[in-house]
Protein backbone atom coordinates (compact mmCIF):
# COMPACT_ATOMS: atom_id res chain seq x y z
CA UNK A 1 0.00 0.00 0.00
CA UNK A 2 3.07 2.24 0.04
CA UNK A 3 2.32 5.63 1.55
CA UNK A 4 -0.95 4.40 3.02
CA UNK A 5 0.91 2.17 5.52
CA UNK A 6 1.14 5.08 7.95
CA UNK A 7 -2.64 5.32 7.98
CA UNK A 8 -3.22 1.62 8.57
CA UNK A 9 -6.48 1.18 10.46
CA UNK A 10 -7.79 4.45 9.07
CA UNK A 11 -11.23 3.93 7.58
CA UNK A 12 -11.39 7.35 5.99
CA UNK A 13 -8.49 9.61 5.12
CA UNK A 14 -8.59 13.21 3.99
CA UNK A 15 -5.59 14.18 1.88
CA UNK A 16 -4.97 17.87 1.30
CA UNK A 17 -8.75 18.25 1.03
CA UNK A 18 -9.94 21.67 -0.01
CA UNK A 19 -13.47 22.98 -0.49
CA UNK A 20 -14.60 26.25 -2.06
CA UNK A 21 -17.95 28.01 -1.75
CA UNK A 22 -17.69 29.96 -4.98
CA UNK A 23 -14.36 31.81 -4.54
CA UNK A 24 -14.25 31.38 -0.79
CA UNK A 25 -11.83 28.71 0.40
CA UNK A 26 -13.74 27.12 3.31
CA UNK A 27 -11.52 24.08 3.92
CA UNK A 28 -7.84 24.82 3.45
CA UNK A 29 -6.13 21.54 2.73
CA UNK A 30 -7.11 19.11 5.46
CA UNK A 31 -5.10 15.98 6.28
CA UNK A 32 -6.93 13.75 8.73
CA UNK A 33 -7.20 10.01 9.43
CA UNK A 34 -10.42 8.65 10.85
CA UNK A 35 -9.56 5.31 12.50
CA UNK A 36 -11.92 2.36 12.31
CA UNK A 37 -13.91 1.14 15.32
CA UNK A 38 -13.44 4.35 17.23
CA UNK A 39 -15.07 7.72 17.72
CA UNK A 40 -13.41 10.81 16.32
CA UNK A 41 -14.75 14.16 17.47
CA UNK A 42 -14.35 17.26 15.34
CA UNK A 43 -14.42 20.37 17.50
CA UNK A 44 -13.95 24.05 16.85
CA UNK A 45 -15.80 27.35 16.99
CA UNK A 46 -18.83 28.13 14.77
CA UNK A 47 -17.84 28.73 11.19
CA UNK A 48 -14.55 26.82 11.44
CA UNK A 49 -15.73 24.40 8.74
CA UNK A 50 -16.26 21.32 10.89
CA UNK A 51 -19.79 20.62 9.61
CA UNK A 52 -18.69 21.34 6.05
CA UNK A 53 -15.86 18.83 6.49
CA UNK A 54 -18.22 16.22 7.95
CA UNK A 55 -20.71 16.69 5.12
CA UNK A 56 -17.88 16.30 2.62
CA UNK A 57 -17.29 12.73 3.78
CA UNK A 58 -20.53 11.49 2.20
CA UNK A 59 -20.71 14.27 -0.37
CA UNK A 60 -23.77 16.01 1.05
CA UNK A 61 -22.15 19.28 -0.01
CA UNK A 62 -22.77 18.28 -3.62
CA UNK A 63 -26.28 19.62 -3.09
CA UNK A 64 -25.05 23.15 -2.51
CA UNK A 65 -24.65 25.30 -5.57
CA UNK A 66 -21.18 26.69 -6.22
CA UNK A 67 -19.27 24.12 -4.17
CA UNK A 68 -15.97 22.84 -5.63
CA UNK A 69 -13.48 20.50 -4.06
CA UNK A 70 -9.84 19.61 -4.55
CA UNK A 71 -7.61 17.01 -2.95
CA UNK A 72 -8.97 13.66 -1.87
CA UNK A 73 -11.07 11.92 0.69
CA UNK A 74 -10.15 8.28 0.51
CA UNK A 75 -12.56 5.57 1.61
CA UNK A 76 -11.81 1.90 0.92
CA UNK A 77 -8.90 2.84 -1.29
CA UNK A 78 -11.02 5.11 -3.51
CA UNK A 79 -11.17 8.86 -3.71
CA UNK A 80 -14.89 9.42 -3.10
CA UNK A 81 -14.81 12.46 -5.39
CA UNK A 82 -13.70 10.33 -8.31
CA UNK A 83 -16.33 10.60 -11.07
CA UNK A 84 -16.71 6.83 -11.13
CA UNK A 85 -17.98 6.71 -7.55
CA UNK A 86 -21.64 5.77 -7.24
CA UNK A 87 -23.25 8.23 -4.83
CA UNK A 88 -25.86 5.73 -3.75
CA UNK A 89 -23.17 3.25 -2.85
CA UNK A 90 -21.14 5.87 -0.99
CA UNK A 91 -24.06 7.16 1.03
CA UNK A 92 -25.25 3.69 1.92
CA UNK A 93 -21.76 2.88 3.23
CA UNK A 94 -21.19 6.25 4.90
CA UNK A 95 -24.34 7.07 6.86
CA UNK A 96 -25.26 10.44 8.25
CA UNK A 97 -27.21 11.63 11.29
CA UNK A 98 -28.31 15.25 11.42
CA UNK A 99 -28.47 17.93 14.06
CA UNK A 100 -32.20 17.81 14.50
CA UNK A 101 -33.68 14.34 14.31
CA UNK A 102 -35.03 13.90 10.80
CA UNK A 103 -37.94 11.61 11.59
CA UNK A 104 -40.12 11.46 8.50
CA UNK A 105 -43.90 11.82 8.87
CA UNK A 106 -44.22 8.10 8.18
CA UNK A 107 -44.64 5.05 10.38
CA UNK A 108 -41.75 3.97 12.58
CA UNK A 109 -41.33 0.94 10.32
CA UNK A 110 -41.18 3.00 7.12
CA UNK A 111 -38.76 5.47 8.69
CA UNK A 112 -36.20 2.67 8.72
CA UNK A 113 -37.41 0.62 5.75
CA UNK A 114 -37.25 3.57 3.34
CA UNK A 115 -33.45 3.31 3.30
CA UNK A 116 -33.11 -0.37 2.26
CA UNK A 117 -36.01 0.14 -0.17
CA UNK A 118 -33.93 2.76 -1.93
CA UNK A 119 -31.18 0.15 -2.24
CA UNK A 120 -33.66 -2.11 -4.01
CA UNK A 121 -34.74 -4.39 -1.16
CA UNK A 122 -38.38 -5.26 -1.86
CA UNK A 123 -39.12 -8.52 -0.06
CA UNK A 124 -41.27 -7.97 3.00
CA UNK A 125 -39.50 -10.63 5.06
CA UNK A 126 -36.13 -9.12 4.25
CA UNK A 127 -37.31 -5.62 5.14
CA UNK A 128 -38.82 -6.89 8.41
CA UNK A 129 -35.49 -8.42 9.30
CA UNK A 130 -33.52 -5.26 8.46
CA UNK A 131 -35.92 -3.06 10.44
CA UNK A 132 -35.71 -5.31 13.48
CA UNK A 133 -31.93 -5.62 13.31
CA UNK A 134 -31.48 -1.85 12.90
CA UNK A 135 -33.88 -0.98 15.72
CA UNK A 136 -32.18 -3.55 17.99
CA UNK A 137 -28.86 -2.03 17.03
CA UNK A 138 -29.87 1.29 18.54
CA UNK A 139 -31.71 -0.21 21.50
CA UNK A 140 -35.12 0.95 20.33
CA UNK A 141 -36.68 -2.36 19.34
CA UNK A 142 -38.21 -3.28 22.71
CA UNK A 143 -39.77 0.18 23.05
CA UNK A 144 -41.41 0.30 19.64
CA UNK A 145 -41.90 -3.28 18.42
CA UNK A 146 -45.66 -3.07 19.11
CA UNK A 147 -45.98 0.40 17.58
CA UNK A 148 -44.19 -0.09 14.26
CA UNK A 149 -47.24 1.13 12.35
CA UNK A 150 -47.55 4.31 14.41
CA UNK A 151 -46.22 7.66 13.27
CA UNK A 152 -42.60 8.29 14.16
CA UNK A 153 -43.47 11.87 15.04
CA UNK A 154 -45.06 10.58 18.25
CA UNK A 155 -41.65 9.49 19.59
CA UNK A 156 -39.59 11.64 21.95
CA UNK A 157 -36.79 13.62 20.33
CA UNK A 158 -34.20 11.29 21.82
CA UNK A 159 -35.94 8.27 20.37
CA UNK A 160 -36.42 10.05 17.05
CA UNK A 161 -32.66 10.55 16.91
CA UNK A 162 -32.13 6.85 17.70
CA UNK A 163 -34.57 6.07 14.91
CA UNK A 164 -32.47 8.15 12.53
CA UNK A 165 -29.37 6.24 13.57
CA UNK A 166 -31.31 3.01 12.99
CA UNK A 167 -32.09 4.24 9.49
CA UNK A 168 -28.44 5.13 8.94
CA UNK A 169 -27.22 1.64 9.97
CA UNK A 170 -29.97 -0.17 8.04
CA UNK A 171 -27.94 0.02 4.82
CA UNK A 172 -24.92 -1.72 6.38
CA UNK A 173 -22.55 1.23 6.47
CA UNK A 174 -19.19 1.10 8.16
CA UNK A 175 -18.85 4.83 8.71
CA UNK A 176 -21.43 6.95 10.54
CA UNK A 177 -21.23 10.73 10.49
CA UNK A 178 -23.03 12.59 13.28
CA UNK A 179 -23.56 16.32 12.93
CA UNK A 180 -24.11 17.67 16.46
CA UNK A 181 -26.52 14.81 17.06
CA UNK A 182 -27.33 15.80 20.65
CA UNK A 183 -27.86 19.52 20.23
CA UNK A 184 -31.64 19.17 20.18
CA UNK A 185 -31.72 16.69 23.07
CA UNK A 186 -32.03 17.11 26.83
CA UNK A 187 -29.08 16.07 29.07
CA UNK A 188 -30.46 12.61 29.82
CA UNK A 189 -31.24 11.82 26.19
CA UNK A 190 -27.74 13.10 25.38
CA UNK A 191 -26.13 10.62 27.78
CA UNK A 192 -28.28 7.81 26.37
CA UNK A 193 -27.11 8.78 22.90
CA UNK A 194 -23.47 8.78 23.99
CA UNK A 195 -23.93 5.29 25.49
CA UNK A 196 -25.28 4.20 22.13
CA UNK A 197 -22.27 5.70 20.37
CA UNK A 198 -19.92 3.67 22.58
CA UNK A 199 -21.82 0.57 21.62
CA UNK A 200 -21.78 1.38 17.91
CA UNK A 201 -18.06 2.06 18.17
CA UNK A 202 -17.43 -1.71 18.32
CA UNK A 203 -18.66 -2.07 14.74
CA UNK A 204 -18.32 1.28 13.06
CA UNK A 205 -16.05 4.21 12.41
CA UNK A 206 -17.89 7.13 14.00
CA UNK A 207 -17.20 10.79 13.29
CA UNK A 208 -19.03 13.34 15.40
CA UNK A 209 -19.13 17.10 15.10
CA UNK A 210 -19.89 18.75 18.41
CA UNK A 211 -19.97 22.15 20.07
CA UNK A 212 -19.97 20.55 23.47
CA UNK A 213 -16.46 20.23 24.93
CA UNK A 214 -17.50 17.82 27.69
CA UNK A 215 -19.15 15.64 25.11
CA UNK A 216 -16.02 15.55 22.98
CA UNK A 217 -13.89 14.85 26.05
CA UNK A 218 -15.96 11.99 27.41
CA UNK A 219 -17.37 10.47 24.21
CA UNK A 220 -14.50 10.22 21.75
CA UNK A 221 -11.22 8.40 21.19
CA UNK A 222 -9.66 10.98 18.93
CA UNK A 223 -10.15 14.69 18.60
CA UNK A 224 -9.65 16.94 15.61
CA UNK A 225 -9.53 20.65 16.44
CA UNK A 226 -10.36 22.97 13.54
CA UNK A 227 -10.03 26.70 13.25
CA UNK A 228 -10.75 28.94 10.26
CA UNK A 229 -10.96 26.06 7.80
CA UNK A 230 -7.73 24.43 8.96
CA UNK A 231 -6.89 21.52 11.21
CA UNK A 232 -4.90 22.87 14.14
CA UNK A 233 -4.35 19.67 16.02
CA UNK A 234 -5.32 16.01 15.97
CA UNK A 235 -4.58 13.29 18.45
CA UNK A 236 -5.96 10.95 21.08
CA UNK A 237 -8.72 12.82 22.91
CA UNK A 238 -7.06 12.58 26.32
CA UNK A 239 -3.86 14.06 24.98
CA UNK A 240 -5.60 16.87 23.11
CA UNK A 241 -7.60 17.78 26.19
CA UNK A 242 -4.91 17.39 28.87
CA UNK A 243 -1.76 18.22 27.00
CA UNK A 244 -2.48 20.09 23.80
CA UNK A 245 0.47 20.79 21.56
CA UNK A 246 -0.88 24.01 20.10
CA UNK A 247 -1.62 27.02 22.32
CA UNK A 248 -4.74 27.78 20.25
CA UNK A 249 -6.14 24.36 21.12
CA UNK A 250 -5.45 24.99 24.77
CA UNK A 251 -7.21 28.35 24.67
CA UNK A 252 -10.25 26.84 22.95
CA UNK A 253 -10.71 23.86 25.24
CA UNK A 254 -10.27 25.99 28.33
CA UNK A 255 -13.03 28.26 27.08
CA UNK A 256 -10.94 31.31 26.23
CA UNK A 257 -11.38 33.18 22.99
CA UNK A 258 -9.09 31.85 20.32
Amino acid at each position, binding site marked *: MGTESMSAGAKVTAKDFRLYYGDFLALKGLNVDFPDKSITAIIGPSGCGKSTFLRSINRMNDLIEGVRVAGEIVYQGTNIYDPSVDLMWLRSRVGMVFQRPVAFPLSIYDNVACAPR*VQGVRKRSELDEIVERSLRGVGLWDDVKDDLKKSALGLSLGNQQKLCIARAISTNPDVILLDEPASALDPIATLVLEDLMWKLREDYCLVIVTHNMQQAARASDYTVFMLGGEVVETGPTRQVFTNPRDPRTERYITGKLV
Partner: protein
Amino acid sequence: MNRKEKFAEVVLTVVGLTSVAVLALIIFFIFREGAPFFAEVGLGSFIGGTKWSPGKGQFGVLPMIAGSFFVTLGALVIGVPLGLGCALYLSEFAPKRTAAILKPLIEILAGIPSVVFGFIGLTVIVPLIRDRLGGPGFSVLASALVLGIMILPTMVSISYDALRAVPQVYREGMLAVGANRWQAVTSVVLPAARSGILAAGILSMGRAVGETMAVIMVAGNATIIPGSVLDPVRTLTSNIALEMGYAAGLHRQALFATGVVLFVIIGALNIVARSFVRNRVR
Protein backbone atom coordinates in the same frame (compact mmCIF):
# COMPACT_ATOMS: atom_id res chain seq x y z
CA MET B 1 -58.70 57.46 19.91
CA ASN B 2 -60.78 54.93 21.74
CA ARG B 3 -63.97 56.11 20.05
CA LYS B 4 -62.30 55.94 16.67
CA GLU B 5 -61.27 52.39 17.35
CA LYS B 6 -64.78 51.49 18.45
CA PHE B 7 -66.12 53.01 15.26
CA ALA B 8 -63.71 51.04 13.09
CA GLU B 9 -64.64 47.87 14.91
CA VAL B 10 -68.36 48.43 14.31
CA VAL B 11 -67.86 49.23 10.62
CA LEU B 12 -65.68 46.19 10.03
CA THR B 13 -68.11 43.94 11.87
CA VAL B 14 -70.95 45.17 9.65
CA VAL B 15 -68.87 44.66 6.51
CA GLY B 16 -67.87 41.19 7.65
CA LEU B 17 -71.43 40.23 8.46
CA THR B 18 -72.61 41.48 5.07
CA SER B 19 -70.75 38.78 3.18
CA VAL B 20 -72.09 36.15 5.54
CA ALA B 21 -75.56 37.61 5.08
CA VAL B 22 -75.22 37.36 1.30
CA LEU B 23 -74.39 33.69 1.61
CA ALA B 24 -77.33 33.15 3.94
CA LEU B 25 -79.66 34.93 1.50
CA ILE B 26 -78.45 32.85 -1.43
CA ILE B 27 -79.10 29.67 0.50
CA PHE B 28 -82.46 30.97 1.63
CA PHE B 29 -83.63 31.92 -1.88
CA ILE B 30 -82.45 28.77 -3.60
CA PHE B 31 -84.16 26.62 -1.04
CA ARG B 32 -87.31 28.78 -0.93
CA GLU B 33 -87.71 28.64 -4.70
CA GLY B 34 -86.80 24.98 -4.93
CA ALA B 35 -88.70 23.64 -1.92
CA PRO B 36 -92.24 23.80 -3.40
CA PHE B 37 -90.98 21.76 -6.34
CA PHE B 38 -89.77 18.97 -4.08
CA ALA B 39 -93.17 19.03 -2.38
CA GLU B 40 -95.01 18.73 -5.67
CA VAL B 41 -92.87 16.36 -7.72
CA GLY B 42 -91.08 14.50 -4.97
CA LEU B 43 -87.38 14.01 -4.32
CA GLY B 44 -87.31 10.49 -5.73
CA SER B 45 -88.73 11.21 -9.18
CA PHE B 46 -86.56 14.35 -9.43
CA ILE B 47 -83.20 12.86 -8.53
CA GLY B 48 -84.02 9.38 -9.83
CA GLY B 49 -85.85 10.43 -13.01
CA THR B 50 -84.06 9.98 -16.33
CA LYS B 51 -86.35 12.11 -18.55
CA TRP B 52 -86.03 15.87 -18.61
CA SER B 53 -88.72 17.49 -20.78
CA PRO B 54 -90.26 20.44 -19.00
CA GLY B 55 -92.85 20.80 -21.78
CA LYS B 56 -94.36 17.41 -20.85
CA GLY B 57 -93.92 17.99 -17.14
CA GLN B 58 -91.04 15.50 -16.86
CA PHE B 59 -88.35 16.67 -14.50
CA GLY B 60 -85.77 13.90 -14.08
CA VAL B 61 -82.41 15.42 -13.21
CA LEU B 62 -80.42 12.17 -13.14
CA PRO B 63 -78.92 12.70 -16.64
CA MET B 64 -77.48 16.02 -15.43
CA ILE B 65 -76.17 14.53 -12.18
CA ALA B 66 -74.54 11.79 -14.25
CA GLY B 67 -73.30 14.42 -16.72
CA SER B 68 -71.66 16.52 -14.00
CA PHE B 69 -70.19 13.36 -12.51
CA PHE B 70 -68.64 12.05 -15.73
CA VAL B 71 -67.39 15.42 -16.92
CA THR B 72 -65.83 16.16 -13.51
CA LEU B 73 -64.30 12.70 -13.28
CA GLY B 74 -62.83 13.11 -16.77
CA ALA B 75 -61.47 16.54 -15.91
CA LEU B 76 -59.79 15.11 -12.81
CA VAL B 77 -58.34 12.16 -14.71
CA ILE B 78 -56.73 14.65 -17.10
CA GLY B 79 -55.99 17.60 -14.81
CA VAL B 80 -54.80 15.96 -11.60
CA PRO B 81 -51.84 13.96 -12.96
CA LEU B 82 -50.90 16.83 -15.26
CA GLY B 83 -51.16 19.41 -12.48
CA LEU B 84 -49.37 17.28 -9.91
CA GLY B 85 -46.61 16.47 -12.38
CA CYS B 86 -46.21 20.14 -13.13
CA ALA B 87 -46.11 21.04 -9.42
CA LEU B 88 -43.54 18.28 -8.83
CA TYR B 89 -41.36 19.58 -11.63
CA LEU B 90 -41.55 23.17 -10.41
CA SER B 91 -40.99 22.30 -6.77
CA GLU B 92 -38.45 19.47 -6.95
CA PHE B 93 -36.62 19.51 -10.26
CA ALA B 94 -36.80 22.85 -12.03
CA PRO B 95 -33.96 25.34 -11.52
CA LYS B 96 -35.14 28.10 -9.18
CA ARG B 97 -35.24 30.68 -11.95
CA THR B 98 -37.32 28.47 -14.25
CA ALA B 99 -39.84 27.89 -11.46
CA ALA B 100 -40.00 31.60 -10.73
CA ILE B 101 -40.96 32.26 -14.35
CA LEU B 102 -43.27 29.30 -14.96
CA LYS B 103 -45.40 29.39 -11.83
CA PRO B 104 -46.86 32.88 -12.40
CA LEU B 105 -47.50 31.95 -16.03
CA ILE B 106 -49.56 28.96 -14.95
CA GLU B 107 -51.46 31.14 -12.51
CA ILE B 108 -52.36 33.48 -15.36
CA LEU B 109 -54.38 30.56 -16.76
CA ALA B 110 -56.77 31.10 -13.86
CA GLY B 111 -57.40 34.66 -15.02
CA ILE B 112 -58.47 33.76 -18.55
CA PRO B 113 -62.27 34.06 -18.84
CA SER B 114 -63.96 30.69 -19.10
CA VAL B 115 -65.70 31.72 -22.33
CA VAL B 116 -62.27 31.85 -23.95
CA PHE B 117 -61.58 28.27 -22.90
CA GLY B 118 -64.98 27.35 -24.28
CA PHE B 119 -64.23 29.11 -27.54
CA ILE B 120 -60.95 27.27 -28.00
CA GLY B 121 -62.73 24.03 -27.15
CA LEU B 122 -65.40 24.80 -29.69
CA THR B 123 -63.05 25.70 -32.52
CA VAL B 124 -60.20 23.25 -31.86
CA ILE B 125 -61.12 20.34 -29.63
CA VAL B 126 -64.67 19.64 -30.81
CA PRO B 127 -63.76 19.42 -34.55
CA LEU B 128 -60.69 17.36 -33.69
CA ILE B 129 -62.77 14.81 -31.78
CA ARG B 130 -65.44 14.75 -34.50
CA ASP B 131 -62.90 14.13 -37.26
CA ARG B 132 -60.59 11.74 -35.47
CA LEU B 133 -62.81 9.81 -33.08
CA GLY B 134 -66.29 10.21 -34.54
CA GLY B 135 -69.56 11.30 -33.00
CA PRO B 136 -70.77 14.88 -32.89
CA GLY B 137 -67.58 16.15 -31.26
CA PHE B 138 -69.63 17.91 -28.58
CA SER B 139 -69.04 15.36 -25.88
CA VAL B 140 -67.96 14.25 -22.41
CA LEU B 141 -64.43 14.02 -23.76
CA ALA B 142 -64.40 17.59 -25.10
CA SER B 143 -65.78 18.91 -21.80
CA ALA B 144 -63.30 16.89 -19.77
CA LEU B 145 -60.38 18.14 -21.86
CA VAL B 146 -61.39 21.79 -21.52
CA LEU B 147 -62.11 21.45 -17.80
CA GLY B 148 -58.96 19.42 -17.24
CA ILE B 149 -56.94 22.38 -18.47
CA MET B 150 -59.05 24.89 -16.59
CA ILE B 151 -58.39 23.21 -13.23
CA LEU B 152 -54.62 23.21 -13.78
CA PRO B 153 -53.91 26.53 -12.00
CA THR B 154 -55.74 25.37 -8.88
CA MET B 155 -54.12 21.95 -8.96
CA VAL B 156 -50.63 23.24 -9.67
CA SER B 157 -50.44 26.11 -7.24
CA ILE B 158 -52.00 24.35 -4.24
CA SER B 159 -49.95 21.16 -4.75
CA TYR B 160 -46.86 23.29 -5.28
CA ASP B 161 -47.42 25.07 -1.98
CA ALA B 162 -47.96 21.73 -0.27
CA LEU B 163 -44.71 20.36 -1.71
CA ARG B 164 -42.76 23.50 -0.79
CA ALA B 165 -44.07 23.23 2.77
CA VAL B 166 -42.26 19.89 3.16
CA PRO B 167 -39.12 20.64 5.20
CA GLN B 168 -35.89 20.54 3.21
CA VAL B 169 -34.34 18.26 5.86
CA TYR B 170 -36.70 15.46 4.77
CA ARG B 171 -35.19 15.56 1.30
CA GLU B 172 -31.66 15.70 2.67
CA GLY B 173 -32.45 12.89 5.06
CA MET B 174 -33.41 10.64 2.16
CA LEU B 175 -30.47 11.71 0.00
CA ALA B 176 -28.18 10.91 2.92
CA VAL B 177 -29.19 7.24 2.78
CA GLY B 178 -28.37 7.08 -0.91
CA ALA B 179 -31.70 7.99 -2.49
CA ASN B 180 -31.76 9.93 -5.73
CA ARG B 181 -34.07 12.91 -5.99
CA TRP B 182 -36.93 10.94 -7.49
CA GLN B 183 -36.72 8.34 -4.71
CA ALA B 184 -36.68 11.09 -2.09
CA VAL B 185 -39.82 12.53 -3.66
CA THR B 186 -41.74 9.26 -3.81
CA SER B 187 -40.70 7.89 -0.43
CA VAL B 188 -40.95 11.01 1.73
CA VAL B 189 -41.92 14.26 0.01
CA LEU B 190 -45.17 13.02 -1.55
CA PRO B 191 -46.37 11.22 1.60
CA ALA B 192 -45.56 14.33 3.65
CA ALA B 193 -47.49 16.57 1.25
CA ARG B 194 -50.33 14.09 0.82
CA SER B 195 -53.10 16.00 2.59
CA GLY B 196 -52.27 19.25 0.76
CA ILE B 197 -52.30 17.46 -2.57
CA LEU B 198 -55.62 15.86 -1.69
CA ALA B 199 -57.01 19.29 -0.85
CA ALA B 200 -55.76 20.56 -4.22
CA GLY B 201 -57.63 17.71 -5.93
CA ILE B 202 -60.83 18.42 -4.05
CA LEU B 203 -60.74 22.15 -4.75
CA SER B 204 -60.07 21.37 -8.41
CA MET B 205 -63.07 19.09 -8.33
CA GLY B 206 -65.18 21.94 -6.95
CA ARG B 207 -63.99 24.16 -9.77
CA ALA B 208 -64.86 21.49 -12.35
CA VAL B 209 -68.32 20.86 -10.92
CA GLY B 210 -69.12 24.56 -10.87
CA GLU B 211 -67.80 25.61 -14.26
CA THR B 212 -70.66 26.45 -16.61
CA MET B 213 -69.85 28.58 -19.63
CA ALA B 214 -66.98 26.62 -21.13
CA VAL B 215 -68.88 23.38 -20.67
CA ILE B 216 -72.05 24.65 -22.34
CA MET B 217 -70.00 25.52 -25.41
CA VAL B 218 -68.46 22.06 -25.91
CA ALA B 219 -70.73 19.54 -24.16
CA GLY B 220 -73.60 19.29 -26.65
CA ASN B 221 -76.07 19.65 -23.76
CA ALA B 222 -78.34 16.73 -24.65
CA THR B 223 -80.38 15.55 -21.66
CA ILE B 224 -79.32 11.95 -21.87
CA ILE B 225 -77.12 9.79 -19.70
CA PRO B 226 -74.00 9.48 -21.89
CA GLY B 227 -73.18 5.97 -23.04
CA SER B 228 -69.63 6.77 -24.08
CA VAL B 229 -67.10 9.59 -23.78
CA LEU B 230 -68.03 10.66 -27.32
CA ASP B 231 -71.71 11.23 -26.45
CA PRO B 232 -73.04 14.72 -25.74
CA VAL B 233 -73.81 15.52 -22.15
CA ARG B 234 -75.46 18.20 -19.99
CA THR B 235 -74.25 19.19 -16.54
CA LEU B 236 -76.24 20.55 -13.61
CA THR B 237 -74.89 24.08 -14.00
CA SER B 238 -75.50 24.06 -17.76
CA ASN B 239 -79.06 22.95 -17.15
CA ILE B 240 -79.77 26.05 -15.07
CA ALA B 241 -77.93 28.46 -17.36
CA LEU B 242 -79.51 27.14 -20.56
CA GLU B 243 -83.13 27.22 -19.45
CA MET B 244 -83.45 29.92 -16.83
CA GLY B 245 -84.00 32.56 -19.49
CA TYR B 246 -87.41 31.28 -20.50
CA ALA B 247 -88.52 29.03 -17.64
CA ALA B 248 -91.66 29.79 -15.64
CA GLY B 249 -93.80 28.11 -13.01
CA LEU B 250 -92.90 24.53 -12.13
CA HIS B 251 -90.13 24.53 -14.72
CA ARG B 252 -88.51 27.52 -13.03
CA GLN B 253 -88.82 25.83 -9.65
CA ALA B 254 -87.21 22.70 -11.12
CA LEU B 255 -84.17 24.76 -12.08
CA PHE B 256 -83.90 26.09 -8.55
CA ALA B 257 -84.17 22.51 -7.33
CA THR B 258 -81.26 21.70 -9.65
CA GLY B 259 -79.43 24.51 -7.86
CA VAL B 260 -80.20 22.87 -4.51
CA VAL B 261 -78.64 19.61 -5.71
CA LEU B 262 -75.59 21.50 -6.93
CA PHE B 263 -75.37 23.43 -3.68
CA VAL B 264 -75.42 20.26 -1.61
CA ILE B 265 -72.68 18.67 -3.76
CA ILE B 266 -70.40 21.70 -3.61
CA GLY B 267 -71.05 22.24 0.09
CA ALA B 268 -70.06 18.65 0.81
CA LEU B 269 -66.88 19.03 -1.27
CA ASN B 270 -65.94 22.17 0.64
CA ILE B 271 -66.41 20.52 4.02
CA VAL B 272 -64.24 17.59 2.96
CA ALA B 273 -61.56 19.92 1.54
CA ARG B 274 -61.51 22.01 4.70
CA SER B 275 -61.06 19.00 6.92
CA PHE B 276 -58.02 17.99 4.84
CA VAL B 277 -56.51 21.46 4.98
CA ARG B 278 -57.05 21.57 8.72
CA ASN B 279 -55.33 18.20 9.15
CA ARG B 280 -52.38 19.58 7.28
CA VAL B 281 -52.03 22.57 9.60
CA ARG B 282 -52.00 20.35 12.66
